[in-house]
C-alpha cells in the first residue's frame, strides 16, 4: 500500500485514507471548534501526508507518523486562526461549566472528548499535546511559541478543569490520583 501510494496509484491512496482517516478525524476533533473545522484539518493533514509520504523512513508505525503530521496540522491551523487568545484565567475557571446540549452521545470516550473540547482552546491544546500525544513541555513550548513555564501552568489548570468536568458528568468519581491495585477511577 505504501509503495503504491508513493506511485500515486489512486486505489492505494484511497485505501490508506480509508484505513487511517476515522482515527485521525478523532484526533483533529479534539483540537477543533466543531466537526467542520475538524474535517478541514483532516483534509489539510492528509494532503500533507501524501505530499510528504516519501519522508516516512519506516521508523515506528505509519499510524504514529500520520498522527504526528495531523497534530502539527491542527496546531498550525489553530495558530493561523489565532485561536489561542481565549484562554481563561484560573479564577474564572470555576464558572466554566459544560453545556449539556452539545454533548449528545452516551458513549464514554466521546463524552470525555467532548469534555476536552469544551475547554478553552489554549488549555485543551496543551492538554491534548501533553497528556494524550505525549509531547514534553519543552516541545509544546516550541510548537506553540510560548514559554515552557506557561505550558506547565496551562496544563495544570487544564487538568484541574477537566477533572471537575468529568466529575460533574459522572465519568469519574474523584480527581485521578495514585490508585491502589484494583481500584478504578471511573464513576
Amino acid at each position, binding site marked *: 500500500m505504501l509503495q503504491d501510494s508513493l506511485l500515486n496509484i489512486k486505489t492505494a491512496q484511497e485505501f490508506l485514507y480509508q484505513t487511517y482517516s476515522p482515527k485521525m478525524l478523532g484526533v483533529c476533533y479534539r483540537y477543533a471548534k466543531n466537526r467542520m473545522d*475538524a474535517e478541514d484539518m483532516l483534509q489539510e493533514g492528509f494532503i500533507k501526508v501524501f505530499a510528504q509520504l516519501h519522508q516516512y523512513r519506516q521508523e515506528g508505525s505509519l499510524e504514529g507518523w500520520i498522527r504526528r503530521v495531523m497534530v502539527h496540522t491542527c496546531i498550525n491551523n489553530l495558530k493561523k486562526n489565532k485561536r489561542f487568545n481565549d484562554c481563561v484565567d484560573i479564577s474564572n475557571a470555576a464558572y466554566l461549566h459544560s453545556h449539556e446540549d452539545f454533548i449528545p452521545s452516551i458513549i464514554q470516550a466521546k463524552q470525555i472528548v467532548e469534555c476536552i473540547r469544551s475547554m478553552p482552546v489554549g488549555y485543551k491544546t496543551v492538554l491534548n499535546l501533553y*497528556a494524550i500525544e505525549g509531547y514534553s513541555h519543552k516541545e509544546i513550548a516550541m510548537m506553540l511559541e510560548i514559554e515552557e513555564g506557561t505550558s506547565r501552568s496551562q496544563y495544570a489548570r487544564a487538568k484541574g478543569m477537566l477533572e471537575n468536568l468529568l466529575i460533574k458528568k459522572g465519568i469519574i468519581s474523584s480527581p485521578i490520583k495514585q490508585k491502589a491495585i484494583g481500584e478504578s477511577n471511573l464513576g
Partner: protein
Amino acid sequence: MEHNSPGHFEQFLKEATADFKLRPSLKLWNSIYNNMHPGRKSPSLPTILLMLVLILFMEKKSNPITTTTKNTFLVISNISIDTKTATLTKQNVVSDFLSKEKKVDLPTRDLALKTFVDDTQINFETEKAIVWTSEQVATSIANNQANVLANTPLRLTNSKSNNIPTIASTSNQLAIPASSKSNAGYAYQFYATPSVGYRNTFRNTDPLLALSNGAQLPVNDDEHVISTFHSSSWNLEAGGAFLMSVSKYMRIKAGMQFNFSQYGSNTNSNPDAETLITGTKSVNSNTALFNATNNESTNQKMSDINNRSYQISLPIGTEFELTGNEDFQWFAGATIQPSYLFGGNKIMFNNDMNNIAEDPSMVRKWNINTSIETYLSYKLKNGAVINAGPQLRYQLLSTYDKSYIYSEKLYNFGIKLGVTKNF
C-alpha cells in the same frame, strides 16, 4: 519527540481516547484527491450538456443556409406564372433543368424540385415559393453568373405587367427550401418508461445508538449487509411533453410526468422490541417500529417491504438530432426535473440496516431529478413519429431530511417508448 512520563491521569486519558474514531463525510476523499491531482477532474454532467448546447448553437450560427419558413420551394418553371392564383404542378416544372446543365452547384437535396415531382401543389397564398423562369436561369448561366445563381437569395415579387416573377437580391444567402423532415415548429409527445430502479445510500453522520434499556446496537458499515437485504424492483414513468424546434438539429421540451419508484427490502421483524433509529433526531415513540436482532432464538419473521414513492415531475430539457433521414432519426437528450413526492411508504433503516421504521417528517417532499436518454424515431405514414430508446434517471437530492444518518438517491434505468406528433 521526547515522551513525558505518563501519570495516571495521562494514562487514563490516553486509554479513554485511544480508539475514539469519527467517520469523515464521503466527499472529503474526493476533495483530497482533486487537490492532489488538480488536472484530472472530469467535467460534470451539466457542464457537458452546456458544451453540447454551445456547440450546436455555434453550428447553427455558422451555417449560412437557413430557412425559417416551412414549405419554401425553389421552382424552375418554363412558363410565366400568376403568383397569386397559380397552382404549379409537375407539368409546369422543368425539374431536371439544373442537373442537366450541371453548371450550377446548388445543394440539391433540399430543393423542391424533387419534392415537386410528386405532384405537390403550391398555394402561393399560404406558402412561399422562389420561382425562376428557365429564361432567367439560362441568362444567369450564360452570363457566367453561376455563383450568383448559387449564392444570391431570391425574393418573390409580383410583376403586374406580365406576372413573371423577378429576382431581387439583398444578401448573399441562398434561401433553400425547407427540409421535409418533421422537426420543424412545434410538436407534442406522450411516453411511458418501464424501468428497473434501485438506490445509492451514503452515510451522513456518526451513528448514535441506544436501546431504551441502555444497551448499544453494533455499528455495521458493511455494504454487503446492505445489499443482502435490499434489491432492485420495477419502476414506471409516464407523461407528456411539448417540443419546440430551436434549430435544425435541436429542440427544447417541457412537460409533466408521473413517477413510481420502488426498491425491495427484507428484514427480520419482531414487533415486541423497540429501537431508536438514528442521528440527531429521535424517532417518535408512537411510530410503528420493527426490530431485528442477531439473536435467532427470538420469534422472528421476514417481511418483504417495498420502499415506494409516487412523484409528479416537471421535466425541462433538450433533445439533439444526432443523425438521420426523413424516416429514421437518432436523438439524444437530457432533462432536469423538479419533483414533488405526494405518496408512498418510505421505510427508514437504522445504523446496522436491520431495524426499520417510518417517520414521514424525515422524508423530503420536494426533490430534483435528472435524466439522460437516447432513442431512435421512425416516422409513420400518418405523420406521427414513434420513439424507443434507453433512459437513465437519477435523483439529485437525498430522499430524506439531513437529520437522518443516511442519504438515499434513487435511480432507475429503463426503455422509453413514446409517440410524437407535430402541430
